[in-house]
């Protein structure tokens, strides 16, 4: 393989991986806030929760388009196999995002008849998180491919494992959401978020543990990846660091820190993502299509890569700027709806 044809797909896989993890973390906290809505029945608290994410959600969700679009551009073969394979969960995700997304504006316009949009926001957030988890689980378990096309059935994605990853993602996003509320709000909402954070955090750790055990047991290639010597040695830092971070986050929640629980939850997501990448490299469509097989023509990859290298830093700067503009904790009085 020529050096360019080897390295371009790797660079693109890293870029799409970065977009995915940015999406999971960023939309994770605003989906999480939606998932927690049912536990905060008071209107005033819900106003505050929604205000805490309203200026960012649209930018956050754009990373989902970046991830999906990037997959199409850089790996059209993978895109054309994965999307039909997880057809129904993707449709569910899209519909859920509609209910969640419009609620940000509709809820304020509908007041005082906004209860239905509270439901739309919470239900949409929960369903979106669950669908994403289903897609993740289906991908990890592997997709049936023949002649470069998806060759399975319409319900291949539905297994106990994918349902578990679906639930795990709902819990995980809820935890990031609770962390966000501790970070960005004060008073009752922050206190309540801290109370819910304890069981959510433990549930998130349990979910990570279960997936870490379940995948190697069920999928031999993943067991081999982790437990064959000397991989066991080289990869051992991943679980070790995870345990250290887990302990740090737990202490932070118990001590009442406002920022650390959020970042600990984010770090756990990052570590889990690294673990999944290690389990599946070099496959983009496990267990058969690698990043090199799925790659678009090098000219196509180069053409968009130039744009990505020039523009992504600018995007990160102005996205960061918006977070800076709306920095600090918000409370009842500084709700900034337009």
């Amino acid at each position, binding site marked *: 393989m020529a050096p360019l044809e080897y390295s371009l797909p790797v660079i693109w896989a890293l870029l799409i991986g970065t977009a995915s993890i940015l999406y999971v973390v960023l939309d994770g906290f605003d989906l999480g806030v939606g998932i927690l809505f049912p536990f905060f029945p008071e209107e005033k608290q819900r106003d505050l929760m929604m205000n805490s994410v309203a200026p960012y959600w649209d930018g956050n969700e754009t990373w989902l388009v970046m991830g999906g679009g990037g997959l199409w551009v850089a790996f059209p073969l993978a895109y054309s196999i994965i999307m*039909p394979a997880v057809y129904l969960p993707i449709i569910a995700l899209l519909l859920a995002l509609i209910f969640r997304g419009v609620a940000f504006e509709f809820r304020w316009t509908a007041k005082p008849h906004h209860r239905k949009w509270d439901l739309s926001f919470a239900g949409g957030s929960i369903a979106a998180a669950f669908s994403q988890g289903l897609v993740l689980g289906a991908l990890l378990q592997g997709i049936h491919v023949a002649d470069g096309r*998806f060759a399975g059935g319409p319900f291949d994605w539905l297994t106990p494992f994918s349902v578990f990853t679906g639930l795990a993602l709902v819990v995980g996003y809820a935890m990031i959401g609770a962390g966000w509320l501790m970070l960005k709000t004060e008073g009752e909402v922050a206190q309540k978020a801290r109370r819910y954070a304890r069981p959510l955090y433990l549930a998130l750790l349990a979910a990570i543990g279960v997936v870490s055990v379940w995948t190697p047991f069920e999928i031999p290639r993943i067991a081999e990846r982790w437990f064959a010597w000397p991989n066991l040695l080289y990869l051992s830092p991943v679980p070790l660091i995870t345990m250290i971070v887990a302990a740090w986050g737990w202490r932070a929640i118990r001590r009442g820190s406002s920022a650390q629980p959020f970042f600990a939850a984010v770090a756990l997501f990052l570590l889990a993502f690294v673990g999944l990448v290690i389990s599946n490299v070099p496959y983009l469509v496990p267990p058969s299509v690698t990043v090199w097989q799925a790659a678009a023509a090098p000219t196509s990859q180069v053409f968009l890569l130039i744009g990505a290298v020039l523009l992504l830093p600018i995007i990160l700067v102005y996205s960061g700027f918006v977070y800076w503009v709306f920095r600090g904790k918000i409370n009842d009085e500084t709700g900034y709806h337009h």
Partner: protein
Amino acid sequence: MQALLSDSVMLARLQFAFTISFHILFPAFTIGLAGFIATLEILYLRTGRPHYAVLSRLWTKVFAVSFAMGVVSGIVLSYQFGTNWSRFSLVVGNTIGPLIGYEVLTAFFLEATFLGILLFGRDKVPRWLHALSAVLVAVGTAISAFWILSANSWMQTPAGHTIRDGIAYPASWFEIIFNPSFPYRFAHMLNAAYLTASVVVLAVGARYLLAGRFTEEGRTMMRMGLGMVAILAPLQLFIGDLHGLNTAAHQPAKLAAMEAHWDGASPAPFVFFAWPDEKNERNRYEVSVPALGSLVIKHDPKGLFPGLSDFPREERPPVFPVFVAFRVMVAVGLALIASGLVGAWLWWRGRLFDTRWYLRLVAPMWPLGFIAILTGWIVTEVGRQPWIATGILRTADAISPVPAGSVAASLLAFVVVYTVVFGVGIFYVRRLLGRGPVAAMHGTEGALPNRPLAAAQSALNEDTLEKGR
């Protein structure tokens, strides 16, 4: 019905047609509205006259609701390429995938991020930065149109590529992006977006004047809306004519369908009305003016252009929808030109705001731009059939290996959800506009209990309103 439910291609096409038809209304409106809001913000920055800020607040609320619907319905489309059209994704992914990628990088992030400041940052950032955010959102929406229309135009008139093993590979990015129909389609669509929003602004202004409410704001809206309509509507005729000539050169079968022109050996009449009979290759109940069709298309009454009968049946687009949609679009365009010119004349005579028949005429005109956009897209998309990418991939060969049942179920879900959710959204937009500028400022805040700041703000706003009069 049974046949339809097992026809994956038709179901996938219906799903795309339905979801994109709903979607296009929102970006088309918000592209134009973003330009309007940015103009208001700049006027406010330069003159300091509060009623520009009042108007900007009202329309920003409308923008926010419409933009949210545009975002969520747009994500559906970006994933639909994969879910329903995976073969299409694979065959043309190398050539037009990067154009969509550039749309995300140059437009989506820009719009979404600065929208946060536009909507929520009015009291958090300096005035100039708020105005700049409005400008950046407007620029972002226009850049987005640039890329998506480039990709669509490439599907219409592909260029700059080579085919290997049935897959299109890029040869020249310049030729791919600036493919033959792109400049015309882009100009036509962008102008349509600004025109559509201008018509809405004009109509809402006329409504306020008719009701005798918010007269200062209503007059400003009528001036700004009418000024745009009077210029953009005639301009659209000119661009449309150029676009038609381009279609004649590059997509002759589509053009023949637009005109329901069967016999290419004789000059074409201009058909005002007909029932195209595709089986017998002729028009029933035709009402037409001889040679006028040739004059319009070839700019020569004796000019010849290919008729539908010159193309094999399997190369022809469906005639009826293309023919009818084109007529509706042109009729709307002519109506807009007429109302723009009449309004401009009344304005010049100083009678614009007192001529009640004119106000009554334009007040219900707000949907016209949307109708023209939808029918225009029917012309261009149905007219491209039977190809999804002209000469490269047929629509029938472009679908995913997904059972028809899945496509039917998701189509049903989209129809139900879109009708309910976006129906309510459009109702909310109408209600916001019905409430008017004052309510837009503290209508929602007033609904929040225990908010001293909101109360203070309301008092302040009433104060500014007074000064504005």
